[in-house]
């Protein structure tokens, strides 16, 4: 979308979070540039969600610095929230409201005008193919569609950055594929995508990835570069090497 190095929209320096004596995120440092699809990989419990929650202003870091869209996570978390979209690991829309009502709720919260909400609802519903369930309570629709809906709601106010925390967890392979197509489209429209996953094959779809092991950033770079660096054929193998360094 642009030539030359794009602006840095997420910057973390020695970002750390501890819970009691447990160090969930241990001095991680990285930068994400505008328009990137940045993948955050790691096993369950590696600290991905904790990191994402700090960046979104949901959790105060224990130490280190970070800024998102130019706003400091300590002091300007409310300003960050205007510029980001977030889709949590756990489905977090109201399942007793209908698809339309959920969209309308978040449209109102982000201050979209009623006409704009109607317009966006129509566009989103058409893009997701949800026309026939738009008036059904969310609880009644299958998980894959719920996830797509959650993603769309996160994009409703056209944020500069969108954080997706394991968006494809528990979803069938076909839906996963469609999901990644939506991610690409979003990035193509200029939104930075910060996505976590523990599916290593999804890493190949990202522009750049970082791999978290036990709260630390073990590796970072474009997928192809990392495969070359470790001399293996896939990110899966890179990950296995990092996770069990002495093993093989």
């Amino acid at each position, binding site marked *: 979308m642009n030539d030359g190095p794009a602006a840095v929209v997420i910057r973390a320096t020695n970002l750390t979070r501890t819970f009691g004596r447990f160090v969930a995120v241990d001095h991680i440092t990285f930068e994400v540039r505008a328009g990137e699809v940045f993948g955050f990989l790691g096993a369950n419990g590696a600290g991905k969600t904790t990191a994402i929650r700090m960046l979104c202003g949901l959790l105060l870091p224990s130490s280190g610095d970070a800024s998102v869209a130019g706003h400091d996570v300590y002091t300007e978390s409310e300003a960050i929230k205007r510029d980001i979209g977030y889709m*949590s690991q756990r489905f977090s829309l109201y399942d007793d409201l209908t698809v339309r009502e959920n969209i309308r*709720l978040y449209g109102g*919260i982000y201050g979209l005008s009623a006409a704009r909400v109607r317009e966006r609802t129509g566009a989103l519903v058409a893009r997701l193919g949800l026309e026939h369930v738009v008036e059904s309570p969310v609880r009644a629709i299958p998980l894959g569609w719920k996830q797509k809906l959650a993603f769309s709601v996160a994009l409703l106010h056209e944020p500069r950055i969108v954080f997706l925390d394991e968006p494809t967890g528990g979803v069938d392979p076909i839906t996963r594929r469609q999901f990644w197509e939506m991610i690409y489209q979003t990035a193509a429209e200029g939104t930075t995508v910060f996505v976590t996953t523990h599916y290593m094959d999804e890493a190949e779809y990202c522009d750049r990835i970082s791999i978290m092991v036990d709260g630390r950033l073990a590796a970072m770079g474009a997928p192809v570069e990392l495969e070359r660096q470790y001399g293996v054929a896939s990110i899966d193998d890179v990950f296995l090497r990092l996770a069990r360094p002495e093993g093989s």
Partner: protein
Amino acid sequence: MRRILSLARAEVLRIVRDRATLVQIFLVPLAQLLVLANAATFQITDTPMYVVDLDHTSTSRGLVTRFTASGHFEIIGESSSLDLANDALRRGRATMVLAIPRDFEASLVRDRRAPVQIALNAEKGAAAGIVQAYASAILAAYSAELGTTLRPSIGAVRAGIAGGQLGEPPPVRGAARIDVRTRSWYNPALDYRDYMVPGILVALVTVIGTLLAAQNIAREKELGTLEQLNVTPVTRAQFITAKLLPLWVLALLELALGLVVGHLVFGMPVRGSVALLFGVAGIYLVAALAIGLWISTLVETQQQAMFVTFFIVMIYFLMSGLFTPLDSMPRWVQLLAELNPVRHFVEISRAILVKGAGLRDIVRPLGALVILALAALGVSVRQYSKRSA
């Protein structure tokens, strides 16, 4: 403002969708109001009484008849054994034992005074006091009645003269007499329901409002929906307002419904201004619901929310003058009760409904309510954090 409305609208939809809760919100309180309004009375109509009449004279029979005729007492047993009487008391069959000694009539005629024995089950302190008052009144009335019929015997008069009581002024004319009239204002029929219906109504609306508010945010924490709201630019004040508003309307509706039922079914008096009552109720509900929401921000799960609600609501009820008089409580409890919004609202609603009080009469408790409402709102907004610990 648009944010608040959007959030509030979603909140309303969610409440309306939850049919089971909605039914509970409206039916349970109405049913309870209808039933419980009749429960609250200390009036003692048929105190079970055991009679031990050892005198067996027309005077002693007369006394027993006065007890039964009063409508307050019912004879459940009669014998000449005090042991049997005590057993009835212990078993709880009798609440009072009336024992008339053998020479009751004789000593009344001779000395113009005679003892009777009354044993009361004083377990229930206040109730016992009332039974005691009833009994004393009957005894006093019967004494007065006997005074005109029982002439002192010649013997007694002679004995009096011999005892040197001649110096006494003649008791017939010129004796001090005080004519006491009593007036029971606001509730001349002493009907307990007039007093309790407003109180029960307040209690019901409060417990439901507090519980709904207290579990509201806790439930969203459990479901995970709160996190999605926390990454939006909604401010804390907007969030609390949007949560409070629908519950506030719901509670006011419930109160209105209860008032109509109370008025139509129980003939509860509405002597003051209904508009004033609802104005105060609006302020009161802000306080009560904000306290509920505050609980909700404090706890992590609905279970914890409920236990805290239980604790608070018990304090609301039992330290508010709702059931037992506030004036009888120790000083420190009364001071503590100043923090209890229910105490002020119960006082105000009774004053408006039963006494016909106007704004001028309720300034003090109203002021307390306003302060409590503002404080509770402030605290719940501050306590609510968009970040987790």
